[in-house]
């Protein structure tokens, strides 16, 4: 679960990490009001989950109330790489002397937290990693000991900060680590971490990604993201025990298991079709779940055919069949349904489905070919 910059900065403030003065606005009026609250220029930043906001025109400087109003108006409603900007962060512009990069993330292969730092901040860290990998420091942090001064020292030295700025940066990094742990984050990142001309260290940007598995113990963060989260079809599906990601194709997939779901999408593509979605109905599926999955497909106007691929194990094929029957009878399904059922209670399932208008196939390949063929007509 990614947080918006303004949300991450609210957490930063709670942990005494200095961020520029400012707040979030939903309208140009509010943006203008915020901008008039402090002297000097204001930065207006689109709050959307896309990389390279700046280059794409989502971050702009403005002078005075009127210009802030106008600029916010331009950014709000803007389409940034497919996402519509609904919120902006309006902040007092700061006098930048130097820009650094710091983050904490989880190294899956090493099974450790890694502290990543660079004196080349303010640009895409992936580019830095490619062009000048030597400028990136990585320190691995043992979960047993946690962050220690010796993990931070090399960065502080490279950054060439004076004693006072060192103390500020060190405190920021330690608090950032605290945030990383206490919010169950997959990633906390400050890019750029700014040294201002009057020798203050400030987090000019803030990125946080929270572990979805830990949401049950992160109530405060959940409350923060709740509204936006609940508006997402993916999240609604998850609440019902389904994992759903919409895509651009027209063959709707309903599968049990994430790996088999991906493989089903792959095989559709392999035989010339385009999957409309990823949809994993999980284990021990009950008929209600199947019905809801069908509704998700019907909500996507691109879908021209549905492909049921169920490998019964814990999931019983007869349960899926019952769900399917009730879905067909209650909903007005307006596309053909290709069904492939194998494993636990598959023959019972076929018995249940006998007489319906479903198209049966024995193998994944057979079913995929059939679905692709139906769309092509």
């Amino acid at each position, binding site marked *: 679960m990614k947080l918006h910059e303004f949300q991450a900065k609210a957490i930063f403030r709670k942990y005494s990490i200095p961020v520029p003065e400012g707040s979030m606005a939903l309208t140009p009026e509010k943006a203008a009001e915020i901008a008039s609250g402090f002297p000097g220029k204001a930065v207006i930043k689109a709050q959307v989950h896309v*990389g390279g906001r700046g280059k794409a025109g989502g971050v702009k400087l403005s002078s005075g109330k009127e210009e802030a109003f106008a600029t916010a108006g331009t950014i709000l409603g803007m389409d940034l790489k497919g996402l519509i900007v609904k919120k902006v962060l309006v902040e007092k512009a700061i006098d930048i002397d130097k820009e650094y990069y710091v*983050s904490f*993330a*989880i*190294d*899956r*292969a090493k*099974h*450790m*937290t*890694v502290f*990543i730092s660079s004196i080349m901040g303010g640009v895409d*860290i*992936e580019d830095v*990693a490619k062009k000048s990998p030597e400028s990136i420091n*990585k320190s691995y942090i*043992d*979960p*047993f000991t946690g962050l220690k001064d010796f993990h931070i020292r090399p960065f502080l030295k490279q950054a060439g900060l004076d004693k006072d700025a060192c103390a500020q940066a060190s405190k920021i990094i330690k608090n950032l680590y605290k945030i990383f*742990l206490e919010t*169950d984050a*997959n*990633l906390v*990142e400050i890019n750029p971490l700014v040294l201002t001309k009057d020798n203050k260290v400030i987090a000019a940007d803030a990125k946080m*990604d929270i*572990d979805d*598995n*830990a949401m*049950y*113990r992160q109530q405060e963060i959940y409350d923060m993201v709740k509204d936006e989260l609940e508006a997402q079809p993916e999240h609604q599906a998850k609440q019902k025990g389904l994992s759903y*990601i919409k*895509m651009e194709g027209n063959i709707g997939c309903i*599968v*049990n*298991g*994430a*790996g*088999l779901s*991906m*493989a089903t*999408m*792959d*095989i*559709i*593509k*392999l035989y010339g079709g385009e*999957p409309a979605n*990823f949809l994993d109905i999980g*284990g021990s599926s009950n008929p209600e779940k199947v019905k809801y999955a069908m509704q998700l497909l019907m909500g996507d106007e691109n879908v021209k055919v549905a492909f049921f691929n169920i*490998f*019964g*194990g*814990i*999931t019983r094929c007869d349960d899926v069949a019952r769900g399917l029957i009730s879905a067909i009878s209650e909903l007005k399904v307006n596309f053909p349904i290709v069904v492939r059922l*194998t*494993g*636990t209670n598959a023959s019972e399932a076929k018995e249940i489905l006998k007489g319906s208008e479903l198209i049966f196939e024995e*193998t*994944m*390949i057979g079913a995929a070919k059939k679905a692709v063929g139906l769309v092509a007509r």
Partner: protein
Amino acid sequence: MSILINENTKVIVQGITGRDGSFHAKKMIEYGTKVVAGVTPGKGGSKEHGLPVYDGMSEAVKATGADASIIFVPPAFASDAVYEAADSGVSLIIIVTEGVPVHEMLKLDRYLRSKNIRYIGPNCPGLISPGKSKIGIMSADIHMKGSVGVVSRSGTLTYEVVYNMTKAGIGQSTCIGIGGDPIVGTNFIDALTLFEADPETTAVAMIGEIGGSDEEEAAKFIKTMTKPVVSFIAGRTAPPGKRMGHAGAIISGTSGTAEAKIRALNEAGVEVANTPQGIADLLADKILAGAKK
């Protein structure tokens, strides 16, 4: 032989009185697995499927001499259950629980490794050595005893592969589902190492998916193996960045895409099937050829 478990492995089911724990304990017993006890705090002294239930792992292990534990405990309590298992003396822990926070896993992983305890999962189906023992949640009937090791990050996809293998007459030595979470106890290299050393295994099927760099690392290792490995990678059509953030790529130095993984495997001489069914065909070739890679 087989890897990690065999007909003598004694298993405790943690969370045996829960819905899933009870169901799968029964299935494992029916398969012939030596399930020796269950553990549920507060339920000590009761019985489940005729097995004694204990309050704690320490007493359960003392009473039964168990070697392994399988964990069906909700995410919020799972890590404590694992710590308890780790301190009880078992040498193998299978964590079925889905949804354990990654920060819990970081600590748990460090702890278990420091005690040289092997664990599998979390969020995994467990493992089965057909005809010997099953410590997991896979349906047993699709499996057949044989000489191919199967290792996979995915559940149902593995069933698909195994089902096709069995249909084609290709049996399995051990099938192990390592789980798809960011931090897992046993990764591809760990499993491949065990299969390479197992005299009963003659070839390996490795089923990967997008994300992380485990398949890429495995590819390097496979170059050093004497046994043939075939593979399938799921997620060629998955949208980029849906699961992996930018920092991931900086850390692992790989994009984690299906293409990158397939390329790495091909470079290591591994044939990668286009479909789950394809695995069986590739294996048939290898086995018929008696091929040394």
